[in-house]
């Protein structure tokens, strides 16, 4: 589509011109600042991409805007925090959470193994129980282990949410499903306040990845952290793993088939409910990974009631920009949104007569979302999803 290229290249040219203007005419910023902003955008964009993948996969299969996904992301971040830091839970509570999570793991494994007496199901439950009791009662756990455990539990949570709230509504109007998702989001936010904390929480696991890093560029210095390597690399790793799963395995093939046409897939012998559960599992696991990396990136977690909302809605915007229902689209949209959001504020710095655009950063994401939905709901690489008569 030539118009897409023309608009895209025009935008890039405008940005370059504006950078030149800000650096050489306004002299408000130097070039190294923009290199730093570029790196930061990549970091932020990778995080958006991780969350957007969950939105796009769920929308692709059951056409649901999973409003609760941002809050699943919040749960993932806080779970990891309470796993690697000293947990506030006394032994009975640790045991209850561990038992519930182990039960959830067994529930999910049972979906694929089909029998409760299967050694994998029982073994998974026992391992999860032991690991979680240890992690919750131990003073500190390695943050990577905490992240993996958090991904596991959050994935299970996603499956349970689907089973309890969404699966009874298969075939109901999509609006009913959306209302249920909003209720689920509200439930998770307030339960988070109850179970986790009511405060902004520092998120500083003992790791070398958050150390500062600086290197000279264009006669000036760019300041960043080692996370500039970790976050995009982790995202790329997860995305590659997801792509391999979707393209190379039987379950992935079933997933693509269900996304294309659930009814026909069912007729061909695909267990669509199991496929949807898998989708929720994978999406929530990616969201949890995103949550941990988000915490590392910002060094603190907002309080549970608000932490998930803005990242969630921005990631949804990213999924729509990329083209909802498409995996590469979510990644492209996420990175693009990261760049746009950072550069809107970086390109219009505070000057004598102008307060800068920093305070419009969140508004910008919403405006972008509305514009994309209005002008090109199919996104950059997406198929046309407009309803046909």
């Amino acid at each position, binding site marked *: 589509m030539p118009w897409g290229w023309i608009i895209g290249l025009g935008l890039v040219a405008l940005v370059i011109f504006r950078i030149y203007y800000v650096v050489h005419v306004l002299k408000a910023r130097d070039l190294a600042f923009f290199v730093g902003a570029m790196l930061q955008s990549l970091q932020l964009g990778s995080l958006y991409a991780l969350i957007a993948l969950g939105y796009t996969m769920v929308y692709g299969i059951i056409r649901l*805007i999973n409003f609760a996904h941002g809050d699943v992301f919040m749960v993932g971040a806080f779970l990891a925090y309470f796993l690697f830091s000293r947990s506030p839970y006394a032994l*009975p509570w640790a045991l209850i959470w561990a038992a519930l999570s182990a039960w959830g793991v067994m529930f999910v494994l049972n979906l694929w193994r089909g029998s409760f007496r299967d050694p994998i199901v029982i073994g998974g439950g026992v391992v999860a129980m032991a690991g979680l009791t240890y992690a919750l009662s131990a003073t500190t756990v390695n943050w990577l282990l905490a992240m993996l455990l958090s991904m596991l539990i959050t994935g299970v949570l996603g499956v349970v949410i689907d089973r309890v709230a969404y699966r009874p509504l298969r075939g109901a109007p999509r609006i009913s499903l959306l209302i249920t998702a909003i*209720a689920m989001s509200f439930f998770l936010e307030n339960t988070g306040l109850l179970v986790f904390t009511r405060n902004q929480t520092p998120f500083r696991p003992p790791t070398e990845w958050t150390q500062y890093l600086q290197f000279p560029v264009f006669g000036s210095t760019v300041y960043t952290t080692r996370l500039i390597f970790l976050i995009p690399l982790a995202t790329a790793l997860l995305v590659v793993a997801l792509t391999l799963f979707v393209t190379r395995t039987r379950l992935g093939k079933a997933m693509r088939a269900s996304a294309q046409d659930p009814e026909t897939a069912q007729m061909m012998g695909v267990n669509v409910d199991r496929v949807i559960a898998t989708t929720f599992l994978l999406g929530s696991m990616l969201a949890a990974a995103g949550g941990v990396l988000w915490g590392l990136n910002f060094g603190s977690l907002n309080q549970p009631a608000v932490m998930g909302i803005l990242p969630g809605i921005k990631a949804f915007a990213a999924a729509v920009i990329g083209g909802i229902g498409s995996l590469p689209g979510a990644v492209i949209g996420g990175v693009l949104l990261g760049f746009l959001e950072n550069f809107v504020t970086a390109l219009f710095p505070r000057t004598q007569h102008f307060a800068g655009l920093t305070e*419009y950063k969140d508004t910008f994401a919403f405006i972008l979302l509305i514009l994309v939905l209005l002008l090109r709901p199919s996104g950059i690489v997406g198929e046309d999803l407009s309803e046909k008569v």
Partner: protein
Amino acid sequence: MSEKRMRNAVLTLLGLGLVAVVLYLVQASGNAKLAQVMALFAIWGIAAVSLNLINGTTGILSLGHHGFMLVGGYATALLMLPEAARARISESARSQMTPFTLGLSVESWMRAIGLPGLATPGTLWVRFLIALLIGGLLAMLFGLLVGVPSLRLKGDYLAIVTFGFGEIIRLLASTHLLGPFTNGALGYNGVPGNFGTSLWWTFGILALTVFVMTKLKFSSYGRALQAIREDEIAAEAMGVNLAYHKVFAFALSAFFAGVAGGLWVSYLAAARLDFFLFFLTFFFLVAISVGGTGSYTGVLLGTAVVVFVQQYGDPLEQPYSLHTWLALVGVIIAAVALGAAWLRRSRRLRPVWHPLLFPLLGIGVVAVLTALVGSHWAPLTGTFQAFGMRRILLAVLLVAIMVVRPEGIMGRAEFSWAWVFRERRDQPSDEERAQDAWLSNPELNREASDDEGEG
């Protein structure tokens, strides 16, 4: 027929009179908490009823109602702000307001147009009425703005766009762009509070809103809106102007939301941005979904449920000892297991006791037993206060109602006197009988007999 209409009108008036007596008694009894709860019910009722015009009658899920309320609320607050509060704002160094925006006041306008009689403390109610009207009209403008995307989008995408608009309004209100009008994050204090807490004002405007909405529902406009809800394409084929009717619904709904916002600001005697968060829209959504999507009776019922949980749910958020909480968690887990088994039995799934239910039941029972036995065990001493329990309850209620009974308690049925007197229209009238006789009489209606013969 007209006899029955007469009877219904008289009964409605009597009912309104009864409500007025109840309001009078509540006010006379001096029960401040009850009066406050009822005022809140009326204010949220106005907003929920107006949201129902979009969500229930027209069938468009709109999630931006808190934005409309914000516009109406801030406009009313600014226009009604007393001089003393204005002086405090202009002295404050952190204020963003300009002399122009500080001069926006109904009181000074009344003086300027030569009506000093309307600028006295005794005529505050006239100024409040004017401010409410202006607030409603401003919200209506925003409603028009939000209604326009509804021409291009449908369903969940449109819902997200309305949500985005609601959030944009709230986010912009704290920036330098709208800061001179909203006083940024500081907001206003000292808004006259004697209207939002007055039962006569709130219930009067609620009655007006319900009157307008029900009249609208059964008018040609309302039928057109309901036709849009059932099937847009069929409605358009029948000659319903989709664009006009949708934008009309948004604008009217936003107007009443703005009025509700004005009363809400007066109820709280202040205007701040955190009074207009998404939770308001969520509460109205709960009210609509629980009561019955599309039924104004149901919406009022749902609002009563929401207000009751919010206002009388304090016992849920008191500090209780930890072993009580452990027992509660255990009971909930066990109840989930038992409920799942019950559902499996009612759906004739075998085995009723799925193997996975046993561990769940076991966790619950163990937790309850631990709580019962170990009330003196060290980790279980101490208390815990569950803030936010009411909202969790409302969220669970909404999920439950969507899963179990998606149409809500009332469905689309409305309260009516015919329903009270059990007047069923299962006996056809004489006119209908005559028509039927004509249709089924082969001598009079040749076509009917032909069809039967062919069949």
